């Protein structure tokens, strides 16, 4: 038997190794059966090997790719920096235009809402600062007809001041906080008339609202608007509000309240100059 096997070794092994795979195929082909042990072993070994080789190759490939990516990095950096600066400049310009557009839109809305007023747009060209870095005076420039002294300067949020000097298209504006400033005002909705006097405080945008002693006390947050009695400032423009009515004080025959002004002159870019009224001003309360 052993001699026979030795003599026919090639045929026996070939036949065995050709029949064995047929059996394996037959078992594997029964798809309804569970995965056999040889299949699990083969899949496990091959999967592990592919994972190891794939991971190693991926690392080498990643390093090579990263190295190749460094070629021309300096030029890319210079180009990207330049592009970044250009884009930042464009973004800032866009933001500036958006703010300007918003301010102009508000002015336009005011012109449309106050058709009784003849309003002329003006641009703030200079600000005079107090020692406490508060704006004490403005210079504005108009296009078209030149501004005149004692014309009111307003914005959408309220009253700014009045023109005190004008030369050509340029004018100096006295703000409400100036000690020389006087504005005929009233308490909105209460019909209490009074006078807004500049506080002269170089450290705050404040004014004093003077009313008769016979008037009832004001409540906190009372809004002060122009009354139009001085024929300089048109009626109904907001001037400010009373933050602390309990701190009122007597000033001669009047009672004074501190008023925080509605307009912060430090943030102004564009204003409107009131050239006149389309209809006669009506006294407050009528």
């Amino acid at each position: 038997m052993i001699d026979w096997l030795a003599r026919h070794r090639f045929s026996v092994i070939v036949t065995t190794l050709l029949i064995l795979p047929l059996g394996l195929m037959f078992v594997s082909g029964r798809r309804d059966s569970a995965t056999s042990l040889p299949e699990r072993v083969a899949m496990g070994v091959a999967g592990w090997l592919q994972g190891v080789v794939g991971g190693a190759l991926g690392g080498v490939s990643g390093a090579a790719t990263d190295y190749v990516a460094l070629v021309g990095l300096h030029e890319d950096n210079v180009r990207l920096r330049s592009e970044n600066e250009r884009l930042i400049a464009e973004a800032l310009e866009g933001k500036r235009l958006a703010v300007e557009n918003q301010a102009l839109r508000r002015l336009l809305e005011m012109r449309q809402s106050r058709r009784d007023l003849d309003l002329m747009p003006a641009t703030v060209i200079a600000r005079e600062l107090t020692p406490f870095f508060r704006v004490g005076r403005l210079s504005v420039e108009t296009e078209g007809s030149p501004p005149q002294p004692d014309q009111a300067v307003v914005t959408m949020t309220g009253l700014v001041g009045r023109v005190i000097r004008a030369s050509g298209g340029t004018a100096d504006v006295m703000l409400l906080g100036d000690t020389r400033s006087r504005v005929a005002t009233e308490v909105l909705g209460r019909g209490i008339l009074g006078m807004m006097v500049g506080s002269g405080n170089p450290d705050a945008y404040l004014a004093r609202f003077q009313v008769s002693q016979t008037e009832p006390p004001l409540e906190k947050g009372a809004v002060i608007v122009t009354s139009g009695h001085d024929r300089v400032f048109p009626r109904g423009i907001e001037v400010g509000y009373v933050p602390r009515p309990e701190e009122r004080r007597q000033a001669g025959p009047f009672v004074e309240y501190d008023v925080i002004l509605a307009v912060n002159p430090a943030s102004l870019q564009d204003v409107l100059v009131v050239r006149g009224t389309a209809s006669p001003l009506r006294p407050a309360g009528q």
Partner: protein
Amino acid sequence: MRSILMVLVLVVLMALQSPIFGLLGIRASLLDLPLIATLYLAGSSRALRGFVASAFVGLVADAFTPGGLLGMNAEIHGILFLLALGLAARFPLTRPVPLVLVTAVSSVLKTLLFYLFSILFDRAFEPRVEVLLWGLPTALATAVLAPLLFLPFAGVDRMVQGRRPTESLLR
């Protein structure tokens, strides 16, 4: 020892094949490395050792063929080894042109055997002509590159025995 090294080289090449071709954007099954290994064994080994090694080559191919029938490649490569053994006696596989022709014929035959065994043993197999057509690009690419793909296996021979059975391939 030599046959084991041949199988190991094949394992490494097959493990490398998929990620390398993936990086290059080439379909991983474009080259039939187990067939190359079998043909090399047929052209350079004794009959019995070569046949056993070819059966192991087929098993390796089965392991790297997800979803295939275990044993199918072992069977196919055993048959192809016997065929190549006969051809190698007439055509020297150390020459590029005979090698390319034998590889092309073997690759087509392998596709036909795969189709046949799938019909016989795989109940989930759907016999379609496309299955046969898909084998043509692989046969073409493997045949054309066969002289180059022989080199890693020839390197094993050079390392183990100092033999150079493929030294005339690139002349």
